[in-house]
């Protein structure tokens, strides 16, 4: 049985222009931060579905557009371009801003954790 836990993580107030954006030439996908997320959350979140706090599009974390060639790493919504996750490593401590995610659906199957553990870790 697959148990799904939906966690409300806040909303984003970020704004962006309406200009046409190019094909994101520097973008990787969400797997690029899978290791970081595993380290921070203790679970593989690449198979978790997330809902963008800006446009409410749902996608797997692995589907995000990820930019790693800056001071930090930014995972953006493929639908609207707003940041979902920002990771910054400051003095060996990785800080994760997930205010761009409205909901994160963590399942026992995607994380490899038993369902109660997945639920506990997401709070």
């Amino acid at each position, binding site marked *: 049985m697959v148990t799904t836990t939906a966690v409300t993580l806040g909303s984003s107030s970020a704004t962006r222009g309406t200009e046409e*954006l190019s094909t994101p030439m520097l*973008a990787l996908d969400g797997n690029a931060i899978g290791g970081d997320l595993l380290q921070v959350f203790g679970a593989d979140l690449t198979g978790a579905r997330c809902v963008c706090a800006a446009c409410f599009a749902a996608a797997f974390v692995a589907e995000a557009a990820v930019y790693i*060639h800056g001071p930090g790493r930014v995972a*953006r919504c493929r639908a609207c*371009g707003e940041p979902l996750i920002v990771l910054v490593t400051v003095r060996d401590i990785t*800080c994760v*801003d997930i205010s761009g995610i409205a909901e994160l659906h963590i399942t026992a199957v995607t994380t490899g954790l038993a369902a109660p553990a997945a639920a506990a870790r997401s709070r």
Partner: protein
Amino acid sequence: MSPISRGFSGRRRPLADASRLPPGQYVTDDLPVLSAGPTPHTLVVEWGFTINGAVDQPLSWPWNEFIALPAETITVDIHCVTKWSKLDTSWKGVSVDTLLASVQTDAEYLTAWSDGGYTTNLALEDVTGGRAWIAYEYAGEPLRPEHGGPARLLVPHLYFWKSAKWVRGLTLTRYDEPGFWETHGYHNRGDPWLEQRYQGD
């Protein structure tokens, strides 16, 4: 064979004048492309530059009026918080002093904002007195989109994340409001000579 390796030196090479390199930096010959998001391709006919916020009267210039403003050619060293520095980079642009000359303000800070949603905050004194420009040429060529074109902020005495790519305006503020990277743990001012990389440095 010795079990001790001296390690790889990579791109780091000796510097003729080490006094030009802030602590923890190395010299690179290319101009790396760093971005927190996709590259906007704003056409110059759609581009304009705005000064607003705590000013007596907001100002804006379309592209053709902006490039008709008195411009300066600047050769400066630039320093990225990801530890590369590039020496003797050449830019052409309009001094922020020129842009602010015709506004009255009691603001002490500003937020630079860009196509794509990027923001960064600066003290007004860090962008005045001939220390900041809105640059639209690099090495004698129009500034390419991946390097921030049509125009980017150039504040060479601070880490390069302050030199916002794709800049479209400056909003003057009475209170300091952290921008994108400043909100996420980077230093509020970012002086490379004081190695102000992160909050608390």
